[in-house]
């Protein structure tokens, strides 16, 4: 602890101990504990106590009967636990009988303060920190803490109850660390008393008729087996697994969700899964006992296991597929599909039993689709993967939702009535359909996929969120379409789809919902990025109204849409797809006006998003050598930097520096690559002298922008500028020869300006700077030092412990009624 904090600590302790001086808010106490945690983890707690006796004074003081706030009491309990985590300090505190008075029956536990959840929580957290060594275990046994923890498992405060369960797991692990580790064969009867007590409690809870108690026991076991893979867990599971299996005999199965979690935790444990002979049978039994909704997560968990018997995997997969099988059956799909989807080959369930009501049907289908979506990309997914039936089922569900399916059976009719217009199922099905694009399918089914996607994209009933997902799924399917051999164009099939899709897009770009317009533009940008260079796509796009409408959206009232339109127009222009109806083959005539339009957005748009999008497009254009930019690069860079440097949004200014860096690299050459095999793109022949090299940078006033940005009030801008100037300085060094020979008065004037900017003054612009002056200034600056200072977050001073202590002390009595408020 530094001396300043040590000096402030006694005052802090007396403030905390004084009920008449309430501490402003809980965050201060939390942060104080964070600080003590850092100190105790780094050094001796005993020394801390001895050097700061006020801490001990505080702990003793809170025990006196008084009207102390629950938050200070909770703080003290947590602090005491933290200090007692080290055994020598624990002994020291024990000498004064302080710990039993804090954590035993005589302490807050028996008092009125115990009614405050924060005190109970502090008590648990204190013990959690304290329980680190054998002496602590004896203490817990002696003071009867374990019984209190048992009762706190059912606490009315959710967080207290959860923490109590965690603490039991911790104590069980700690008590078995020594004895059972050395003797893996040791049976529970030979375990330490504390551990035996916990095991008996768990057994009792598992035998209980009350579901909350069973849940608590199952949760404790789940956490134990999830965190600890020591051999003793094997002994414990061996003893408790029959009781767990008994739960399956009850109807309904109690605490099914927690039971599933436990069984999966056991199955994932390397120690338990390899040794436990009955585990797979229990899992199989559970799968068949639970309702379809409860069994889904278990089935998914089983299928995600690395090692698992094939029969169980097949059973789990069948459970997972059941709802989809049911859908296919109800809508009378081809029997071939059914066979391959339902691995059990018979005994198929009916819609009435599996999907009896709308709520049950919607819930189960959403869950099933989500589970399959998670499973699809995993290497351990079932093989063969029934891609075709899954595609068929998903397409069918989507059709049932849109109302385009015409089921003939009663069951199909029921399903249709449940699902029609259901946005939740539509979203889940479209997500899964997108994931299925990773695999292949029969041509006929792929045609159906595109047809249903088109149906959703066209339908006026599709909600904005559904449309967004339909766009995403469409892009994924188009991306996965096989390319025509030899010409890397879209396959004819996808092409046909595209021809139908492009007339739909304009309608979406004109939607009254900004969400739809934006999703449409995002989709378009992705499409151009992927197929902008391909003849078929280009022809189809140019024949549509899409480019024209996109340009109109640059003036959309919604800023998000304007930003997306800027990105789309940037792509269109880069690919030479921005045309006017009059001259479709000569887009060049209008290109300049797009540059002007984007510059206009950059200088006038009241929102940051479109301005940032413009900067992104400009940087990309400069990087790619876009025709407009290449014509007069210097003029372009100068204009953009001038506008960007004035922007109130620091991200625009930072992007300005990004653009400056690209220009710098293009002018001076990229940073040298160390890889001898790296392909170096062709760059302009390097200028012969440094001055010649720097002159274009000086002409675009890049240095004034960068120097000013160095002292920007927003840290990322200053950081970026610092990096840029360091790169520049390194580059200038490679030129060799006499450098930095600028005239002394000029250098001094720039340095004076830099000092003014650092002090926060704006001052007059520097105007044109000679390259020699720039180099001299660069040399004289401590850029490395500045970079180091900027690397630290700008609130580090305010975050320091000293600042925290000062704040707590200063706040006492200073804040009135508005000590807490919204923001």
């Amino acid at each position, binding site marked *: 602890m530094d001396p300043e904090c040590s000096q402030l600590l006694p005052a802090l302790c007396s403030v905390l101990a004084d009920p008449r001086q309430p501490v402003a808010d809980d965050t201060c106490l*939390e942060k104080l504990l964070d600080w003590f945690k850092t100190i105790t983890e780094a050094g001796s707690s005993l020394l801390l106590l001895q050097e700061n006796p006020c801490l001990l004074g505080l702990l003793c003081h809170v025990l006196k009967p008084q009207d102390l706030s629950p938050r200070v009491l909770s703080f003290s309990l947590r602090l005491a636990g933290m200090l007692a985590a080290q055994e020598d300090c624990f002994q020291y505190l024990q000498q004064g009988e302080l710990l039993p008075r804090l954590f035993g029956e005589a302490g807050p536990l028996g008092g009125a303060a115990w009614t405050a959840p924060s005190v109970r929580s502090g008590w648990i957290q204190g013990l959690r920190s304290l329980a680190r060594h054998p002496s602590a275990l004896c203490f817990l046994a002696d003071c009867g803490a374990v019984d209190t923890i048992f009762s706190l498992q059912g606490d009315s405060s959710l967080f207290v109850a959860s923490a109590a369960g965690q603490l039991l797991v911790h104590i069980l692990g700690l008590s078995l660390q020594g004895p059972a580790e050395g003797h893996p064969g040791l049976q529970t009867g030979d375990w330490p008393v504390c551990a035996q007590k916990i095991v008996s409690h768990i057994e009792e809870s598992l035998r209980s008729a009350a579901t909350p108690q069973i849940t608590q026991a199952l949760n404790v076991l789940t956490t134990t087996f999830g965190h600890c893979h020591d051999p003793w867990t094997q002994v414990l599971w061996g003893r408790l697994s029959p009781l767990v299996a008994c739960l399956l005999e009850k109807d309904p199965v109690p605490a099914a969700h927690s039971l599933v979690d436990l069984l999966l935790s056991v199955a994932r444990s390397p120690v338990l899964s390899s040794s436990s002979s009955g585990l797979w049978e229990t899992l199989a039994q559970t799968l068949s006992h639970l309702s379809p909704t409860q069994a889904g997560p278990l089935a998914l968990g089983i299928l995600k296991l690395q090692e698992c018997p094939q029969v169980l995997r097949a059973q789990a997969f069948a459970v997972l597929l059941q709802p989809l099988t049911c859908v296919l059956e109800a809508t009378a799909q081809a029997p071939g599909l059914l066979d391959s989807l339902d691995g059990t080959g018979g005994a198929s369930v009916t819609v009435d039993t599996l999907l009896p009501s709308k*709520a049950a049907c919607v819930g189960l289908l959403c*869950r099933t689709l989500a589970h399959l979506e998670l499973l699809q990309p995993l290497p351990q997914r079932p093989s063969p993967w029934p891609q075709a039936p899954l595609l068929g089922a998903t397409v069918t569900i989507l059709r049932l939702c849109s109302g385009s399916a015409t089921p003939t059976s009663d069951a199909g009719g029921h399903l249709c009535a449940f699902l029609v217009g259901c946005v939740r199922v539509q979203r889940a099905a479209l997500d899964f359909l997108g994931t299925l694009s990773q695999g292949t399918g029969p041509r006929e089914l792929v045609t159906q996929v595109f047809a249903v996607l088109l149906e959703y994209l066209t339908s006026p009933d599709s909600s904005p969120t559904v449309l967004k997902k339909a766009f995403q799924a469409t892009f994924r399917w188009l991306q996965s379409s096989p390319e025509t051999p030899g010409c890397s164009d879209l396959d004819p099939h996808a092409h046909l789809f595209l021809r139908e899709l492009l007339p739909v897009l304009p309608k979406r770009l004109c939607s009254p919902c900004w969400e739809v317009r934006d999703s449409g533009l995002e989709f378009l940008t992705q499409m151009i990025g992927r197929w902008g260079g391909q003849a078929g796509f280009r022809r189809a796009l140019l024949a549509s109204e899409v480019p024209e409408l996109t340009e109109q959206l640059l003036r959309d009232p919604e800023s998000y849409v304007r930003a997306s339109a800027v990105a789309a127009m940037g792509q269109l222009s880069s690919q030479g797809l921005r045309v006017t109806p009059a001259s479709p083959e000569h887009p060049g005539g209008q290109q300049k006006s797009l540059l002007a339009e984007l510059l206009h957005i950059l200088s006038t748009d*009241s929102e940051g998003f479109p301005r940032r999008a413009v900067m992104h497009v400009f940087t990309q254009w400069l990087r790619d050598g876009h025709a407009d930019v290449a014509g007069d690069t210097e003029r372009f860079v100068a204009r953009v930097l001038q506008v960007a440097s004035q922007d109130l949004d620091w991200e625009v200014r930072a992007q300005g520096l990004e653009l400056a860096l690209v220009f710098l690299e293009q002018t001076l050459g990229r940073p040298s690559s160390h890889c001898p095999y790296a392909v170096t793109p062709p760059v302009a022949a390097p200028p012969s002298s440094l001055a010649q090299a720097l002159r274009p940078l000086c002409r675009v006033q890049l240095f004034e922008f960068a120097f000013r940005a160095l002292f920007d009030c927003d840290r990322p801008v200053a950081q970026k500028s610092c990096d840029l100037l360091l790169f520049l300085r390194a580059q200038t060094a490679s030129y060799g020869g006499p450098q930095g020979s600028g005239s002394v008065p000029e250098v001094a004037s720039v340095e004076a300006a830099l000092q003014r900017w650092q002090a926060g003054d704006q001052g007059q612009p520097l105007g044109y700077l000679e390259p020699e002056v720039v180099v001299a200034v660069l040399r004289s600056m401590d850029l490395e030092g500045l970079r180091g200072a900027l690397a630290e977050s700008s*609130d580090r001073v305010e975050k320091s412990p000293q600042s925290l202590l000062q704040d707590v002390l200063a*706040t006492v009595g200073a*804040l009135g009624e508005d000590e807490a408020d919204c923001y």
Partner: protein
Amino acid sequence: MPEIRVTPLGAGQDVGRSCILVSIGGKNVMLDCGMHMGFNDDRRFPDFSYITRNGRLTDFLDCVIISHFHLDHCGALPYFSEMVGYDGPIYMTHPTQAICPILLEDYRKIAVDKKGEANFFTSQMIKDCMKKVVAVHLHQTVQVDDELEIKAYYAGHVLGAAMFQIKVGSESVVYTGDYNMTPDRHLGAAWIDKCRPNLLITESTYATTIRDSKRCRERDFLKKVHEAVERGGKVLIPVFALGRAQELCILLETFWERMNLKAPIYFSTGLTEKANHYYKLFITWTNQKIRKTFVQRNMFEFKHIKAFDRAFADNPGPMVVFATPGMLHAGQSLQIFRKWAGNEKNMVIMPGYCVQGTVGHKILSGQRKLEMEGRQVLEVKMQVEYMSFSAHADAKGIMQLVGQAEPESVLLVHGEAKKMEFLKQKIEQEFRLLPDAKKPRLLHGTLIMKDSNFRLVSSEQALKELGLAEHQLRFTCRVHLHDPRKEQETAMRVYSHLKSVLKEHCVQHLPDGSVTVESILIQAAAHSEDPGTKVLLVSWTYQDEELGSHLTSLLKKGLPQAAS
């Protein structure tokens, strides 16, 4: 009693990261999804582990409802939807939907700028999150699914703030969010009908306080600004982009106009244009005065308040600058503060709460020597003032709302435990929330005869058991008035008249133009044949029968002539 489970994941007995999970009739609804500015780590967001351990979020939760745009109520939303993985619907009012992304973006920029946090939600995530939002109108019953419906009520507090009723079958919960029962300079007072929910979850920030008149605080504020400007000083007012900033702008603008002051007032954020745009767009959400004067002059088109340029801070002479962020913890406001702090003629006015660790908090607690970066010490000589313009209901207001909604039970959140305990007793004393046979009620219970058994149950229980929906009988009456003005103006006249006559009753003019007196609803409509006549459609419930008759007879007498 129906089982309604309420789990506060944040702001149970404190303020910050409001997030309350309500389970009602088998449906799970998350009310607000806020962040805590006092922390920079995981603790800044609510603890979602309780929900995530129940399986997939989107399956578990039926919807998320956001009460208003303050970050302690919506700041964790992009994190929750884009990083934790909630993919279902999010409901909020139209103004909240419009303003929320601005504040989230502001917050993101500060987090990334100041703390250099890389693992933070991005602009794209904010946008994707906002695309999941379904905007609702006031008093519109929105069917989330076949069983769950929600309805928004006006809450005052900030533009677009709403209280929400969540209803599944005959069970219902009302969540207030933050609300204000007294109108302020730009917003009206919160209002709810006698919806008699099973549970009212109400904020209790000022559970033990009866707040002084806001007018006094406003006068004080103007006096202080005026004095500083008169002595040639510069006044810095750190604000968040939306909310209090607009209120203070109106205040200064009017004062400057009245006093013919010449010192410039600047707004530095660049966001003001958009903020003011929204106040104009959602004018129906503001209070009557603003709506009324809107016809002659838009209150948000400021004559004296100009956009700020960084170079202006060095200009000589007095000026007033509104700068973000509001706690002096980064960016422009901090930069200007550092520049002006050394001059005792200058003044900084903190119009809101500051969390520990910010410069705002330090100067408010009286610290005058601040250690800045590079071990520099900044001596604060400028005058430091704190003006609370906080717009929460005080104890009286909370009691008033409980009286309006007539809930079966009340749950206090968003406040301090000790203060809540006090208010709890007050509410119990005043309303006797436990069933009391002596208290006159419309219906004490229902006798059910079934299987040769008689059982006396509550009416709610009877409705549930018999699978019936509640019907409400309303008396209706038409009153013809000779008035050639437009319907809105007629309704306005009716409101003014009733307000002056029925002083002891709660008379409200709703954003949709209708007027309410307790449960009585009055709407003005044009006469189909006679343009010079307006028809007042009056309806009232059985409980307010007497008042309803009295009111119709009053209206039948006609309205007083307006002074010309």
